[in-house]
């Protein structure tokens, strides 16, 4: 069932007839304030991060070259994993949103940036910046709901295929960069015959080129430099890619799928005003609490709500504006979903398991199955919390 847009418990601010518009005006004011303050500080921030990432990459690959020595392998794999996480999240994702276009630096132009992952940057810009950010959590339009392979909303009709939901989710998490790379292909629409393969030829060519370059670098060129010990850098590079995949999946799924985030139908979001659009962004997103280093590693997507309100403002500012956004949400009675990683992720895992089963079950035996799957989710959450 689709959760409707009607606001929860009324508060004085909300009883005003056009409260979404005044909420939107407040959000616009925050945006203007940030635009006015944007400057050298933000330029220095992103350059410093790029510097750290390039250092980690060079250091990681150098250590992995000598990966036959176990300490070098461990340190190298850790450094390269961090490098890929920074490159994809705090740098790549944010730069490609156009967050640093105002600097007029061609190397930081959202339209030109390319990142260290399988998905070609130009395809990402379409499926993510436009489809996902404009149509956030609209079932049928936002393809981030389940990435075409998972059931993440009651609104998606159940089929026996979804019994594998937890298995598909684990596979997606492990090979997330390829899941993202295939995102714009709309495989499920190809299968259903809605779109022809011929229409997607250009996309496939682009994905193939990028995947090939990435694989050549990580699985042929750098391992070859180690000669007979090629297996060590190869294993280190593969591990770094998987670590990045698992981390990115975790952060991204915690952004929209913990309990309490809402989905919308195409009908109820038609002819939306700017205020209503802002409102939907808050309702469809969830934040993660944590320290500054955690937020950087999460690409500041731990401020998913602020990111969805202001996707093209420098992400390093989300933390400071989150105070004002949360305060405004409280005044308007808009739920502001925030929690620590283990709780939000546990909630996502429970949802993945719950939606593996049909919504209406006739017998108690399936209730037992549900309980077991729910328990699995809680265990996973606890394990993660401890890690």
């Amino acid at each position, binding site marked *: 069932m689709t959760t409707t847009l009607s606001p929860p418990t009324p508060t004085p601010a909300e009883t005003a007839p056009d409260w979404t518009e005044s909420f939107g005006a407040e959000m616009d004011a925050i*945006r*203007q304030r940030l*635009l006015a303050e*944007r*400057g*050298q*500080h*933000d*330029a*220095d921030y992103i350059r410093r991060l*790029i*510097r750290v990432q*390039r*250092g980690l990459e*060079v250091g990681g690959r150098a250590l992995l070259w000598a990966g036959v020595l176990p300490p070098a392998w461990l340190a190298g794999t850790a450094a390269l994993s961090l490098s890929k996480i920074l490159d994809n999240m705090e740098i790549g994702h944010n730069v490609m*949103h*156009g967050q640093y*276009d*105002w*600097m*007029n*630096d061609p*190397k930081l*132009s*959202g*339209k030109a940036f*390319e*990142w*260290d992952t399988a998905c070609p940057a130009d395809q990402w*810009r*379409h499926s993510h*910046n*436009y*489809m996902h*950010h*404009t149509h956030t959590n609209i079932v049928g339009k936002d393809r981030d709901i389940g990435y075409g392979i998972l059931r993440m909303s009651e609104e998606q009709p159940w089929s026996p295929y979804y019994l594998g939901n937890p298995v598909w989710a684990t596979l997606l998490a492990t090979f997330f960069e390829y899941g993202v790379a295939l995102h714009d292909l709309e495989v499920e629409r190809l299968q259903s015959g809605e779109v022809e393969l011929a229409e997607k030829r250009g996309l496939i060519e682009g994905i193939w080129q990028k995947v090939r*370059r*990435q694989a*050549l*670098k990580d699985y042929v*060129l*750098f391992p070859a430099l180690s000669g007979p010990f090629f297996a060590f850098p190869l294993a280190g590079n593969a591990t770094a890619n998987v670590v990045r995949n698992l981390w990115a999946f975790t952060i991204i799924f915690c952004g929209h799928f913990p309990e309490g985030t809402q989905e919308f139908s195409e009908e109820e979001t038609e002819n939306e005003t*700017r205020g209503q*659009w802002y409102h939907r962004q808050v309702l469809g997103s969830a934040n993660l609490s944590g320290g500054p280093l955690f937020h950087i590693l999460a690409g500041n997507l731990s401020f998913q709500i602020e990111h969805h309100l202001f*996707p*093209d403002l420098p992400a390093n500012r989300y933390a400071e504006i989150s105070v004002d956004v949360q305060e405004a949400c409280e005044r308007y009675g808009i739920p502001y979903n925030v929690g620590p990683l283990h709780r939000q992720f546990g909630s996502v895992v429970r949802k993945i398991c719950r939606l593996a089963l049909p919504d209406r079950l006739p017998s108690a035996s399936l209730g037992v199955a549900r309980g077991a799957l729910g328990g699995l989710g809680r265990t996973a959450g606890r394990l993660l919390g401890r890690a």
Partner: protein
Amino acid sequence: MSSKPASLRLLDAFAGPHGVDGFLEQVDPLLVTGECRAEVVAVEHGTEESVTLTLRPNRAWKGFRAGQFVQVEVEIDGVRQRRCYSPASAETEEPGAELEITVKRHPGGRVSNFLADHARPGMVLGLGQGEGEFGLPRPWPDSILLIGGGSGITPLMSILRTVLAADRERPVALLHYAPDPERAIYRAELESLARSRPNFRLLRSYTRAPGAGDLDGHFSPTHLPQAEPCFSTAETFACGPPALLDAVRGMWANGLEHRLRVESFVPPELLPSGEPGEGAIRFAESEIEVADSGAPLLVQAEEAGIAAEYGCRMGICHTCTCRKVAGTHRNLVTGEVSSTADEEIQLCVSAALGDLTVAL
């Protein structure tokens, strides 16, 4: 640059997707191979209003012809700003040779004042290759007349230094206009050249200090006869503020136009901007020009039949981001107005104020 040697392409495969430059510039910003940059090696405040910078370019720079301009890029408050400056040094094809630019403060000018206040040895600037048609032709003309005012002296200085370094016979004359001797850029060097080179004739006019120079007042026809060789046979190069150039153009009408070359210096802050719906929108790559309707540029591009990329149409997704080549625009969401050339703008939420060109 796409025509990289195979060895560099292999290195780029290792360094992908950021390329070798993405790592080299972390070591030293001048090491990059695909982008021209220069280090400031000397800073001299020639007059109160101007600063002369000696720049050492990296290997990507190919030099310039005397009289041409280069684009210089400087980061101010995180934003790269680009301006055109004419090098004043003699032309050279020697790779890595230093060049000299002189920047005159413009009232309210962001870049000129920033450079005058903050340029220091060691600072790295973006640098473009030599551009523009204004320059010393080859073979060199038999006699040369230079007319310059204000910072317009810089390309003329380059021509002068180039010719005088190689030639002690060819007659060269310079009509140099400045408000007073203190504000005459390159005065000391010009006076020294005039003393040591018999083939160079210098005529100084100080418009606010009558009697201090060789001539008085703004450019007038009476100044020309004193500048032998005769202006009708010499190749003439004029550069300076619009009023000076208008006066010069008036003199070279009536069949002498082909002997006159002019370069106009207009700081971008002073570019006229109009009201919405007043100017013309030029879509440079599509070679289409339309009268501005005042609507967002994306709408006007579509109405002109251009298949522009777009997404959200509300300023969120940056799919329609496109380079504004020139002109003034207003961001319809933020209300921000900008006249910066070569700037990325979001077509769906940008409207033109006067004439505007986008790379679409």
